[in-house]
């Protein structure tokens, strides 16, 4: 796999540094992939507010509307940043 990514891959796999929060990662400190959410960054609707409606395909390709199709059930929305582990 690394032959496709060259130096970038080398940096991702070989450099191990511990950050100021005590975590290790196979990428150098300052790498954009290690950055957290900037202080004061907007985080969407507040607790108690209603989420805006949206429509997305489910795993079978059927379009699902957030508020119309969940029949009053609660939902967990996860925005997941990592695919590695």
């Amino acid at each position: 796999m690394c032959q496709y990514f060259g130096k970038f891959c080398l940096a991702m796999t070989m450099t191990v540094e511990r950050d100021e929060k005590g975590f290790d990662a196979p990428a150098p400190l300052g790498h954009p992939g290690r950055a957290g959410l900037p202080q004061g960054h907007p985080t969407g609707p507040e607790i108690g507010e209603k989420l805006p409606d949206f429509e997305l395909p489910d795993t079978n390709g059927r379009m699902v509307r957030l508020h119309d199709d969940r029949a009053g059930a609660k939902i967990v929305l996860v925005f997941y940043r990592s695919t590695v582990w």
Partner: protein
Amino acid sequence: MVAKFFHDTYKKRDSAETLIDAALGKVVLTDDSPTANGGSEDIRITVAVHGGKGSIRQGIIRKLVVRFELADGLHIYGAPVPEGMVATEVTVKGPPGFATQDAEMPPTERLHLDMLDTDLGVWSGTVDIVVPFYAKGELASETRPLDADEILIEVQVRYQACTDSECLLPQKETFTLNLPMDVIDVPGLGLHKGHGQREGSYSSAPALRRLMFRKIRQNPLSLPKYLWKNMRLERAARKRLRQRG
């Protein structure tokens, strides 16, 4: 919107149990949680690690739950309290790299003390104090194998229980829990190197085959469509190569 979770680093994330608890609005302890019990007949204390059978896993924030079950008429105090009284306190200690976040205390009820002419925050009935914790690089790092199979943590609980007319003596109890360390498995690919405590050789071909059969069963036309699309892509790629000479 009932809850939102954000962290100061992508190295921390909430467990599935945290999301379920947020949706239910309460902590539901399971039988497989490592648990220690204490207190007395009137004040039962359960200390448990919530989720993942109490395992510590790189990146996941687990929750230590200290549950007080108080007999009718008894209450315990939230901080602040006047001098001479003891507010409920939970302290958790573990090996290097074991990190805790601020304890999550439920809202207190107001109790007016006529003698001192002051309002105090109290809890009665069942009270859950939750201490989130996680592993830093010293304890579990994605870049090396685990040093230990399990760790020992010490939980110290301090409290004073009272009725409306009298107070019991302040108590301090210490609980210990053995928590298993959970290994992170990753595929042994070059790009993944150093992303887990154990690298293995896995083939995704069977899963891909099952996915393709499922898609074809659901929509038999998807197979000729897929083949046709592939042929067009290959033809376009060959044409590009010819044009480049």
